[in-house]
């Protein structure tokens, strides 16, 4: 971090601010900067930008009705070798529990730039979740809107950010619609309703079921079944890499396919 920001700090000493290892202060400063008329962008690892200073998100940003962009790295178990202390698959569920936050989950560095530039021109509260895992090809993404990757008849599969490529591989020969989301909140309910399918599969790269309630509300007047895949809510106590953890949690192509097939076969 320090080596990356040294140059910008020299060029813009009033606007590139390193508060040290002080996450509560970092979020408070963001709120104060916003109230003084600036557009703060806050950056750290996900556990330290969301979980440790969570009350500052709620009060110093949200309750003030101030705006800020929180850009995290270390999504879910990107830092798996560092263990549980540096993992935060709960981050999206936590931010989504607070009113008025947009949550962006790009699946490619180019999409991250698109979303960051678009959000920066607003005064919204936004959480931008950066991950090491990326899809091979970036899409042209728009805040708040899912992309229809493929149309099918048997089910609708919604996937978020970097899990698009595994989902496309897992469903390549299946007659399903695939929706690709880079905005987790506000959830694009219209896109789901337009897909008009009674079977919905949700594949999220963070805590499983984070968006289940959004799907329930989108389809409140429609009989439907939901399979929600994501990171299980367990103390896993294993190191390694994000690839290891995706495989164990069934979030690689083989694991996703193995759980979608019986869901589609069920009545």
């Amino acid at each position, binding site marked *: 971090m320090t080596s990356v920001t040294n140059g910008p700090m020299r060029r813009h000493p009033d606007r590139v601010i390193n508060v040290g290892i002080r996450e*509560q202060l970092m979020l408070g400063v963001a709120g104060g900067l916003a109230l*003084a008329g600036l557009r703060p962008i806050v950056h750290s690892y996900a556990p330290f930008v969301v979980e440790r200073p969570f009350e500052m998100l709620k009060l110093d940003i949200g309750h*003030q009705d101030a705006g800020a962009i929180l850009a995290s790295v270390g999504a879910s178990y990107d830092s798996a070798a560092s263990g549980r202390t540096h993992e935060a698959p709960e981050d999206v569920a936590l931010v989504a529990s607070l009113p008025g936050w947009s949550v962006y989950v790009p699946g490619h560095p180019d999409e991250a730039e698109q979303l960051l530039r678009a959000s920066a021109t607003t005064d919204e509260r936004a959480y931008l979740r950066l991950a090491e895992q990326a899809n091979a090809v970036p899409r042209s993404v728009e805040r708040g809107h899912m992309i229809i990757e493929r149309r099918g008849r048997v089910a609708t599969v919604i996937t978020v950010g970097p899990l698009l490529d595994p989902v496309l591989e897992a469903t390549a020969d299946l007659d399903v619609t695939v929706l690709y989301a880079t905005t987790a909140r506000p959830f694009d309910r219209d896109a789901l309703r337009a897909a008009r399918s009674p079977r919905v599969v949700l594949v999220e790269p963070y805590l499983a079921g984070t968006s289940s309630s959004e799907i329930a509300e989108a389809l409140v007047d429609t009989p439907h079944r939901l399979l929600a895949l994501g990171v299980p809510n367990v103390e896993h106590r294993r190191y390694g890499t994000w690839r290891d953890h995706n495989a164990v949690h069934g979030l690689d192509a083989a694991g996703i396919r193995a759980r979608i097939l019986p869901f589609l076969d069920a009545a």
Partner: protein
Amino acid sequence: MTATLPALGYADLGWLMDLQLGDDKHAASATSTLDVIWVLYDRILRIDPRRIDDPDRDRFLLSKGHGPMAYYAVLAAKGFIDIAALRTFGLYESPLGHHPDRNLVPGIEISSGSLGHGLGIGVGMALGLRARRSPARVFCLVGDAELEEGSNHEAIAFAGRAGLDRLACVVVDNRSSSLGWPGGIASRFAIESWSTATVDGRDHDGLEAALATRHEDRPHAVIAVVEPKA
């Protein structure tokens, strides 16, 4: 906001607090923060209730949002809120809750109540004002018990090292912290390069002199000592 400003003084704060509390005969001294807030609004802050959005206005942040009756009384006396609103204190539709909300009351700079949030926001405001080359100052009021929250000490350390001359922290000390502050509250700021002044929190001239102090290269802490909390 009122069109013509009320001509009310310090002697009126007692009945303005009584309007909120539904009883009477509240001595000003019943509220530890009252004299500090009065001196700030009467003598120090460059603010005007007719221009509450002036980007270069001074900011007052009541970090210790508990017991805001004195704050509301001063805001009413100075024309920032309607006196009639004081009678609605704490009611469902009232803009005046037991903790202040900046989105309900124009002129209130931060929503507060949970301890340990104001000083961090104040650091951000001071950084933002410095980046915009605004001359405005930021005054943040905390309590000696509130200082127990660790977030304050993140802010104290950073503000000193950042030389935030626009920032002042007023600690109203009524000895209500659980474990006390060995060596004195001022020393916690001084070691982080703040200038400090410890004054009688009921002495208006002393408070004025301490609050008006501004050094060019460092933040300023005023320890306003009042009677121990009963």
